[in-house]
């Protein structure tokens, strides 16, 4: 064997088990999106590490519809032009979504995301980036979550506690079973969770349906604002083009909706950012939704600081404190054969 042969013997790896399917899905997502402009700068995703007011806090605020939306008392009140161009572009997204062809059905609804933020573990805070996949065959069937940490960097001590979990410590893909049907629910875990498949395909119908689900569970949130702060849960969900279009039309009417403009999402993709302003923990922030309006697709959501508070002393206005970017979604028949997520053991030492 010559030296090249020995190099090959040393470095060759097994073919990828699931990477090929994953990558193909991501590419298909890109090829069926809107045409990309010619790029000058690097197109590498920037895995910048963003902080968060504890991922759990952010997630809870968003998923529970508890984001406190200001209504005209914000530091910068939305002006009329902003609001109308925001609605116009949102309607353009609706129009594009409507034209998207219906995807061939599979057993599982799959969504791949990348999330970034700050987390707390055993009194220490970390900036992290994680890849996540979810596969859900529907209520009463089976569902799976996959995850892999991309990076995790110690940020500093914190007075918060938070236990170490295997989910935030596995740097290789792992898999675990999930409650089936959650991806089909509007308020997962609620007594009256609703069902995304029942959302009517008209803006008025969608509004009435969402309003009913929210009220029943005790959330008196305006349906358009709720849909905005939970957009991936209804737009990257197992719904058809009509429903997606109806939801975009509903978003166009969300009180307080503002247009941010053309931005790059956390993965470097071009999109249009919209925002709703929120307050909490002494901070003011914009909850931004980044949409590829030409493809009618949600790319990412993120929280941008407008006014810093005690929890974010190290951040300044304009900093992104957490994000979730949608890499792909669609139907699939296969769940990757990743090893199971190890059980959480008690923390090794104090």
């Amino acid at each position, binding site marked *: *064997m010559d*030296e*090249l*042969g*020995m*190099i*090959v*013997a*040393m*470095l*060759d*790896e*097994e*073919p*990828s088990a*699931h*990477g*090929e399917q*994953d*990558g*193909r899905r*991501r*590419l*298909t997502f*890109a*090829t*069926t999106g809107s*045409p*990309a402009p*010619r*790029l000058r700068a690097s*197109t*590498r*995703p920037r895995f910048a590490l963003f902080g968060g007011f504890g991922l759990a806090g952010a997630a809870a605020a968003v998923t529970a519809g508890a984001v406190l939306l200001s209504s005209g008392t914000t530091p910068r009140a939305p002006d009329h032009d902003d609001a109308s161009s925001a609605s116009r572009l949102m309607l353009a997204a609706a129009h594009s979504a409507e034209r998207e062809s219906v995807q061939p059905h599979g057993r599982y609804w799959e969504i791949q995301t990348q999330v970034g933020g700050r987390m707390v573990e055993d009194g220490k805070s970390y900036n992290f980036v994680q*890849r996540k996949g979810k596969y859900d065959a529907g209520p009463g069937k089976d569902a799976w979550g996959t995850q*892999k940490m991309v990076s995790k960097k110690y940020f500093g001590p914190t007075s918060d506690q938070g236990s170490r979990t295997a989910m935030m410590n596995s*740097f*290789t*893909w792992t898999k675990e079973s999930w409650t089936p049907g959650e991806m089909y629910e509007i308020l997962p875990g609620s007594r009256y969770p609703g069902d995304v498949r029942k959302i009517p395909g008209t803006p008025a119908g969608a509004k009435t349906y969402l309003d009913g689900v929210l009220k029943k569970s005790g959330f008196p949130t305006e349906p358009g604002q709720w849909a905005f702060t939970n957009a991936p849960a209804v737009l990257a969900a197992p719904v058809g083009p009509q429903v997606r279009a109806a939801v975009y039309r509903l978003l166009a009417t969300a009180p307080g909706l503002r247009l941010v403009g053309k931005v790059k999402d956390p993965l470097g993709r071009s999109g249009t950012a919209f925002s709703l302003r929120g307050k909490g923990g002494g901070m003011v922030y914009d909850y931004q939704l980044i949409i590829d309006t030409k493809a009618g697709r949600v790319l990412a959501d993120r929280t941008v600081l407008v006014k810093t508070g005690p929890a974010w002393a190290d951040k300044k206005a304009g900093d992104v404190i957490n994000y979730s970017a949608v890499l792909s979604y669609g139907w699939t028949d296969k769940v990757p054969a990743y090893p199971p997520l190890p059980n959480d053991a008690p923390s090794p030492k104090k």
Partner: protein
Amino acid sequence: MSAPPIVDDAELVAASRDDPERFTSVYDRHFAAIRRYVAARLGPEPADDVAAETFLTAFRRRADYDPVRGEVRAWLFGIATRLVGEHRRVEERRYRTLARVAPGRPEEGPEERVADAVDAQLAQPRLAAALRTLSRKERDALLLAAFTDLTRDDIAVALGIPVGTVGSRLNRARGRLRAALSTTKGK
């Protein structure tokens, strides 16, 4: 009405300018090879992502692909090599680990194969150490030569350098590896 099948890579890329979905055929043809090359340099975990990113980058830049300058394969490996370059620490760590890890026992098999495997395993720490001493540019040329079927001309296209430079980098790199191996065999 479906579009006629396209056999040539360059035509596929050209057709994908107007019909983006055709680019998935480029992926289907070359993913395994790109991923194998990237996995050799970065290890299996980051390889899936970097290989996927190679095709996403290529897709976004498909308008820049110029068939006159070289084959699609060479262009793709060039993109993959640049992306690998953004993970230098991961690559460094991989070679550092290989230089330390004691290899496992060879499996049973025909004698020459076992002998080859033994050779390779005994040599592993030195080979890995030698890889670390190469410059990034030498490593690019060497690993493209080892893990792909690209010719020297193709490698020149992939790396955007003259063919002569490919030759000299390869010679230097291989010389360094041979030197490391001869020390091993000196026992």
